[in-house]
C-alpha cells in the first residue's frame, strides 16, 4: 500500500509539473458544466420537477458529476497504456518491483486527485456562486457519498485498466477506448441520470457496475435513495469493486503467461 501512494504521488507531481495546463482545464470544465446546466434548465422549461426530480437537484447533479465523478480520464489511460504496449515501453513498467495493475490504478488515482484539487473543486465553488448548489441531503448521506466516491474511482480505474490490457491482443487502443467511452457516457449516468431512462433499460443498467461511477454517488448525495437502500447500494458497489479487481488480476496473470513484448 505504501508503494501505491508513492506512485500516486509521482503521478500527481507529473500533472503538477504542467502548471499552465490548469487554466485550460478549468476553462474546459467550466464550459462543460455551464453547457449541462443550460441543457437541463431548458429541458425543465419552467417546470419545477420532472419524474420527481427537481431542477436544482439536476443542476447539482451535473456540476458535481462533471467535476468530481467524471469518466473522460479513463480514455487517456487506455490511450497511454495502449501506446506503451504498442511501442514496447511497457517493459520498463514491468521491471518495477510492483504489480503492474496496482501501478496503473495508482497513476490514475494520483492524476484524479490532482484534477479534483486544481480543477474540479475550484469549478464547483465558482459555479455554485452563480447557481444554487444543493448541500448533501444529510450528514449520513455525505458520509456514504464520500465512500461512494472511492468506489466510483475504483470501478472506473479498474475498468479502464482492463480495457487498456485488451490492447495486448489488439495492439491498438483506439477501438477499446471508443467502446469504453461510449459505454461510460451512457451507462454511468454521467450525461443522463437513470431516473430518465426507460423503465426496462433502467432495470438492467442499475445492476451493472457503470452506474456506481456517477449515478449512485449523486443519488445518495441528493438523498434520492433512502438510508437503508443507500447502505445496500454501497455494499453492491464494493462487490463490483472486488469483482472487477479480480477480473483485472486474472487478466493480468493470463497476459503475463502469454505476453509478447513489442519493439525488441
Amino acid at each position, binding site marked *: 500500500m*505504501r508503494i501505491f501512494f508513492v506512485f500516486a*504521488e509521482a503521478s500527481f507531481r*507529473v500533472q503538477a509539473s504542467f502548471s499552465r495546463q490548469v487554466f485550460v482545464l478549468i476553462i474546459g470544465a467550466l464550459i462543460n458544466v455551464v453547457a449541462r446546466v443550460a441543457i437541463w434548465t431548458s429541458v425543465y422549461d419552467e417546470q419545477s420537477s420532472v419524474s420527481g426530480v427537481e431542477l436544482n437537484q439536476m443542476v447539482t447533479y451535473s456540476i458535481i458529476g462533471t467535476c468530481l465523478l467524471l469518466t473522460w480520464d479513463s480514455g487517456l489511460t487506455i490511450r497511454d497504456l495502449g501506446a506503451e504496449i504498442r511501442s514496447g515501453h511497457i*517493459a520498463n513498467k*514491468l521491471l518495477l518491483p510492483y*504489480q503492474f495493475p496496482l501501478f496503473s490504478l495508482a497513476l490514475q488515482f494520483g492524476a484524479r486527485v490532482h484534477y479534483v484539487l486544481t480543477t474540479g473543486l475550484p469549478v464547483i465553488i465558482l459555479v455554485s456562486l452563480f447557481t444554487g448548489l444543493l448541500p448533501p441531503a444529510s450528514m449520513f448521506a455525505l458520509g456514504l457519498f464520500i465512500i461512494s466516491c472511492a468506489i466510483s474511482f475504483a470501478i472506473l480505474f479498474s475498468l479502464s485498466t482492463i480495457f487498456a490490457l485488451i490492447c495486448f491482443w489488439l495492439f491498438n487502443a483506439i477501438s477499446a477506448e471508443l467502446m469504453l467511452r461510449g459505454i461510460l457516457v451512457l451507462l454511468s449516468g454521467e450525461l443522463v441520470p437513470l431516473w430518465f431512462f426507460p423503465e426496462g433499460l433502467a432495470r438492467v443498467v442499475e445492476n451493472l457496475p457503470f452506474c456506481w461511477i456517477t449515478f449512485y454517488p449523486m443519488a445518495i448525495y441528493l438523498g434520492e435513495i433512502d438510508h437503508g437502500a443507500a447502505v445496500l447500494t454501497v455494499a453492491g458497489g464494493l462487490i463490483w469493486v472486488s469483482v472487477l479487481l479480480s477480473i483485472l488480476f486474472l487478466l493480468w496473470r493470463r497476459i503475463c503467461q502469454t*505476453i509478447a*513484448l513489442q519493439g525488441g
Partner: protein
Amino acid sequence: MNAIIQTRNLSKSFPKRTARNWRPKVMSGVWQGLLMADWTGLRQAISTQTTNMISAIDDVSLTVQEGECVGYLGPNGAGKSTMIKIMTGILVPTSGSISVLGRTPHENRVENARQFGSVFGQRSQLWWDLQLHHSFELHRRIYGVDPLEFRMRRGELIEAFDLLDILDRPVRLLSLGQRMRAEIAMALMHNPKLLFLDEPTIGLDLVAKDRLRTYVRRANRDLAVTVIITSHDLKDIEEVCTRIVVVNEGSIVFDGPISSITAKLGYTKKVQVTFDRDPGNINLLGAQEKNASGPVRHFLFDDAAPSILSSLKSLDTSAQLVDIKIEDPGVEDIIRKIYANWST
C-alpha cells in the same frame, strides 16, 4: 563463488501468424470437416491464418558467477533482448529452467526486481516530466531503501556519474548522454547485486560512450555488481567485459574469456605488407590473403602458420618490401568474421 544466473536448456519461441489466402481447397476442407465431424480439420480449413513457432532462444545453458561482467552479443534478432527479458522475469520461457538470484524470475518478478537494476538503452525508467532528483527520491521509496544509506549512495553515484549540475532539470530536457548516465546511476541506487544493460550506449557519441564504459567498469569492480551487457558496439564489450557470450539464432556459439576468442577462432595476427609496386600474384606461406591487388596487401595468419618473418623471407617476388605492419585483430574483426560466415 556462487552462480547468480543459471539456465538449463532454456528455450523461447513466439507464435508467428501469417495470413492465408482463401483458396478453392478451403470449401472441400469445410465439407470434409463437416462430413467426417472432424472439428480440428474444420477449424484449420476456415482459419484465415497459419501459426508457426519462431524460435528466439534455443536450448541455452548458461551460468554466470557473482561478480562477473558478461558481454552478451549477437547480430540483430539473435535473441539477446529476449534473453534479458526472460532473466528479468518479464517474459516466460517456453521450456527449460532458469534461476536468477536463486529464484525463478517470472514467478518471483517483484522480489527479484528489488535486487537487480536494469537499463534498456532505448527506453527510459526515469520519470520523464519530473526533475531528476524526484526520480531518484521516488526510486528510493519504491525500492524501500533506508534514507541514511540512500543518501550516502546517492552522493557517491552523483559524483561518479557527474550528475550534480542536472539534478534540478526535468528528464525530458536532458541530452541523451546525460540521461543514460542518470539511468545507470538510478539503476544502481538500491544497491543491486545484478545489473542488466541492454544496448546502454546506443545513440551516444564517442566521449559519452567512453565515460559510460568507465562507470560500468567501476560499478563492476568497486561495487561488486554482476553485470550482463548486450551491445552492438563491440568496444563496449571489449573494454568492459571479462567474458563474452556470442549467440546466433538463439544458440550460444562462443562462451569464454575475451582473450580466448581470438585463439579459438584461429586468426591471431593481421599483417599489412606494403610493396614499392604491385607485386602481382604472390603467395605467403600459412597466410590468407584478404585483397589480391595493389601495392598494399593484407594477410591473416593463424596459429598453426610458421613464423611471419620466415614466411615473408620466402616471398617470391621482384617487388621491394617497403613496410610491414603486424597487428592483433580486435574482437570486432573476429565477430565480423563470425557474422559474415553466418550470413553466407
